[in-house]
């Protein structure tokens, strides 16, 4: 989604078949600078809050002896799916227990995510010059999530216990953050899920809101 592009579309006067009245144009401009960004920020806060309920990232694993496949689902606060079975399998290659990966991040997320949502909500109503700083943590959430996930996947695939039963037959590897890979007899597919798209959408709304308000501020200064 090209958020910047959208904002620039909004900058241009609306082209209609009929010549719009001056007052209407003013109304639209006022809305774009007033309640629209406020609404976008409220919506972003709601999306971030809702993301707690959905998985951010998932991996499906298939192997001959698991006709139903195995699943891992990562919520921002906890893990779900066949985690115990995956840990059981991973111990053969000396991989860490999945519950230990990003344990600190997950425990903090319980408090941080609602905090980010509330800060974003505050940004909707605070009219001080630094209001946009309140929305920055939420804005950065998708990027931070991907970076952290990637780092942990790399670490889990490389910090293998050399004493594990299959340590000699499995080379260090990085499970895919996105798309398909192969680990032992397993074919794995990784993908983002609803929770991640919710925070991504929230980030877009925040960017749009910041753009609109900055433009409004700029036009006020110009006017």
């Amino acid at each position, binding site marked *: 989604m090209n958020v910047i592009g959208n904002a620039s579309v909004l900058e241009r006067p609306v082209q209609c078949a009929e010549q719009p009245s001056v007052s209407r144009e003013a109304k639209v401009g006022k809305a774009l600078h007033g309640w629209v960004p406020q609404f976008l920020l409220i919506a972003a806060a709601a999306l971030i809050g809702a993301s707690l309920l959905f998985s951010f990232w998932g991996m499906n694993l298939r192997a001959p002896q698991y006709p139903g496949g195995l699943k891992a689902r990562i919520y921002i606060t906890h893990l779900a799916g*066949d985690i*115990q*079975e995956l840990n*059981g399998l991973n111990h*053969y290659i000396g991989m860490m227990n999945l519950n230990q990966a990003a344990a600190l991040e997950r425990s903090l997320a319980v408090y941080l995510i609602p905090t980010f949502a509330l800060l974003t909500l505050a940004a909707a109503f605070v009219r001080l010059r630094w209001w946009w700083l309140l929305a920055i943590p939420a804005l950065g959430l998708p990027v931070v999530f991907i970076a952290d996930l990637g780092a942990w996947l790399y670490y889990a695939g490389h910090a293998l216990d050399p004493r594990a*039963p299959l340590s000699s037959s499995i080379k260090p590897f990085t499970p895919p953050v996105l798309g398909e890979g192969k680990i032992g007899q397993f074919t794995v597919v990784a993908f983002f899920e609803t929770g991640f798209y919710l925070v991504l959408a929230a980030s877009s709304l925040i960017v749009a809101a910041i753009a609109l308000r900055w433009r409004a501020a700029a036009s006020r200064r110009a006017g």
Partner: protein
Amino acid sequence: MLWAKTKVVQGVVGVLAVALLVGLSACQTGASGPSGAAPAAGLSANAADVAKARSLTPDDVSAALKTYVPGGKYDDYYMFASGGQSGQVFVFGLPSMRLLKTIAVFTPESWQGYGQGEEDTMKILDEGKFKNNPILWGDTHHPALSETNGQYDGQYLFINDKANGRIAVIDLRDFRTKQIVKNPVMINNHGGAFVTPNTDYIIDPSQYAVPLDFQYAPISEYKEKYRGLITYWKFDRQKGRIDPAQSFAIEVPPYWQDLCDAGKLVSDGWAFCGSFNSEMATGGIEEGKPPFESGTAQRDMDYLHVMNWKKAEEVVKAGKAQTINGMKVIRLPTAVSEGILYLAPEPKSPHGSDVTPKGDYIVVGGKLDPHVTIFSFKKMQDAIAKQSFDRDSFGVPVFKFNEVMEAQVELGLGPLHTVFDDQGYAYTSLFLDSGVVKWSLGAPYRTEGGWKRVEHIPTQYNLGHLTAVEGDTVSPGGKFVVALNKWSVDRFLPVGPLHPQNLQLIDITGSKMQVLYDAPVGVGEPHYAQIIKAERLKPWKVYPETGWNARAQAKDPNATTAGKEKIERRGKTVEIWMRAMRSNFNPERITVKKGDHVIWHITSIERTEDATHGFALPGYNINLSIDPGETVTFEFDVTESGVFTYYCTEFCSALHLEMAGYFMVEP
């Protein structure tokens, strides 16, 4: 579903048969079914070649198509068959007739680790002991699925042990035996198990008359002292257990009671049991007296026992039963005076007494009489209202045969047992004629034809019981009958003088019955079976939570988890809480001293379907199966010093052989 495509299958079979008979090949078309069906041309060409190469007839091919269940596809029905002298229960899938499982019940069984050290299974077997003598085998005859409103509900299965007069309860959530009860008054049973329409009671009749409570009495006092007993075991569905304290029995004359059936719908609250020694023969072949085989077959009539069990229940509640060895027994004079027991003359030494689906008639197979006799429940009630009886020598009221008999149908030699379909037909096994005979029921089941023999099909050989899809319930399913043949003679590859039994699947959907499949059973002699729609069962795939006690169907107090494994010594007792997970036991080294007593718990923390572990401790005769999520316990005295190994006996993983440990016993 296999049969959703019946039209396609018939079309394909038709084309195939034509191709085979006329010798046509690949360019046949004609069977055009819904999408998903293979084009008949391709199928028939290939199949015709195969059929020709294997000398299969068109009938063989259609039978194959009706029974083949491809790998990964499920059967439509479960069939629970008694396991005869194996003491177990066999579970088959239909229509494939594949053996899916043997459920350990009365006999120790290695694969399931049943009765080979594991505490709970030892306790279950121990419940069934006679006085203080352990019994390590059984002879299972008649399985009975639990019912709700006269229809199988797929929750529990009951099975009798004829040899020792016992009943077992199997929970169909995990297909495991939970309880065995030994009749405390009678030595053996045969006609159980039969459930009442809501599984309030499990009916369990004695077979060979003996003095009650295992007392001694000379055979010369047979008539005075020897008795039969029809036991009504109370089933507590909440607990999933038989409650002996709420159970009762009815004392009956020593007529050698046989198969029973519970009334349903109009006859709910009543039960019907046949008998075959109203002569009260006592044998004595060695003294020149007629042997039992002829002594019990002198009279033309034996007695169908007609019991008002609802009334019996009230009489017991009113305190009119006598407690013998902990069992409340309604004595014979009370059963007569309270209107609980009646007799109906029945020809001759019969086997089955089977209640029709609406509960209005009781069909009795004559065994030594070529007829089935149909009794009317309504006519019995009329006779009771009119008090129109004769009396036997014990003073029990006996209905007048012609006043309660509705019809007799001549079927052939040795009619034993009858089941029903959904079209108003009955199917009776003929032992001597070795076959199944189909016959039509009169009104209200069929408007035309009345009570009439329709068709006979030979089975191989010496057919005992037969069973139909839900064929003894209030709403039979039709489609199939299975004949449980006693002899297979020449039907299978020879495997020595002890031959397998032969269970034959019969298609009853067409205008003529067709035998589809011979299933050899080489592990015991099934007597009776019940067939239930697969969707009625909801079995667990793994235990609901880790640390599950299968006997209690609840969390085990001795469950352990990873990191919580421990060994504790209290004086001479060593208690171990072990954890199993692919591919290790934790702990892997255990050291004790000779003379210690060991209590050992193992919890499998597996949550994955089919990730079962076994556990063997050779030298101490310990062998168990630990299903995913299960906690098991065993204990033993350390009598031998030395170094012992324990290991996983169920191939669980690539490192299964490494799943082992040392049990060190210091002298």
